[in-house]
């Protein structure tokens, strides 16, 4: 009887907790990392292209939506920042806009709000820019409270 229970417990653990990761998910995450490495090495349009491909490529279903959102928003921030530095504010705003369609209460969403605010400010859209900065600060304040609470808890 004990032996049967042991076999059942091991089988349950294998099935529920230790399933192997989907190779497609690993490849996608690695492609994102490689795109950023390419952008590090090349500040020109070729580097932009690597980041743009991250935003356009389909995400494997085995990647959690939260992880996919984080990687895509970070890539969008970086691409938008490069565009803005080159004076392409409308393109930067468009990239930030697309990534903010899936917002979260985290540092990546707040950074994108800052970026979109800058892009809008550069185009003279001061009211919209102020709204983005305000929203970014609202998220930032919540995150800062949590971070300070964690620090105090240590």
């Amino acid at each position: 009887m004990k032996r049967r229970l042991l076999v059942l417990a091991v089988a349950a653990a294998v099935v529920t907790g230790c399933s192997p990761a989907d190779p497609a998910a690993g490849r996608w995450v690695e492609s994102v990392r490689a795109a950023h490495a390419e952008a590090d090495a090349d500040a020109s349009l070729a580097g932009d292209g690597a980041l743009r491909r991250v935003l356009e490529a389909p995400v494997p279903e085995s990647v959690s939506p939260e992880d996919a959102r984080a990687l895509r928003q970070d890539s969008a921030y970086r691409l938008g920042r490069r565009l803005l530095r080159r004076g392409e504010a409308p393109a930067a705003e468009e990239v930030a806009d697309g990534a903010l369609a899936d917002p979260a209460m985290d540092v990546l969403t707040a950074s994108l709000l800052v970026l979109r605010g800058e892009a809008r400010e550069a185009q003279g859209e001061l009211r919209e820019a102020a709204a983005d900065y305000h929203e970014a600060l609202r998220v930032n304040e919540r995150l800062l409270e949590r971070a300070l609470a964690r620090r105090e808890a240590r």
Partner: protein
Amino acid sequence: MSDDGTAGADEAQGPAPSAAEEAEAAAFAAALEGRGDAPEDAAAAAALLRYSRDAGALDDASAARVLQAVLGDAPASDPVAGERPWWARPWTFLLPAGVGLAVAGAALVLTLRPGVPGGDLPLPDVALLRAQARAAEGAGSGELDEALTTYRGALHRRLGERYAP
């Protein structure tokens, strides 16, 4: 045939009934009126007469009596269940057990979905958040970009481990 037409009627009635026939006719009449215990022959004849008149259809009163008898005297669908205490009734435990099995099944299906680990991203440190706040206040984004580069490295490491083949 007589002038008043009664002769034909007399002929149609036939010869006078015998005493036995009269006795049976009396019993027959009693059976039709529902009185007394009619002889079997008389009761059968009355039933036949009644059936020939209305093809066996029940009148409203009889139908109501039959219905009352069926509904009023019918036993409960599960007479035993009505007498059992609540804890001895089958649904007391079958229903919660069914719901429990359904929930467990749904949980199992969700658990067995092909590996979607997810969540649990690296938390930003206070330096990154302060740089972000300053950028939102118009102090420039250089500091924020630098802090995000560090955060990005942690993010890629975490997810690279999570989805490692």
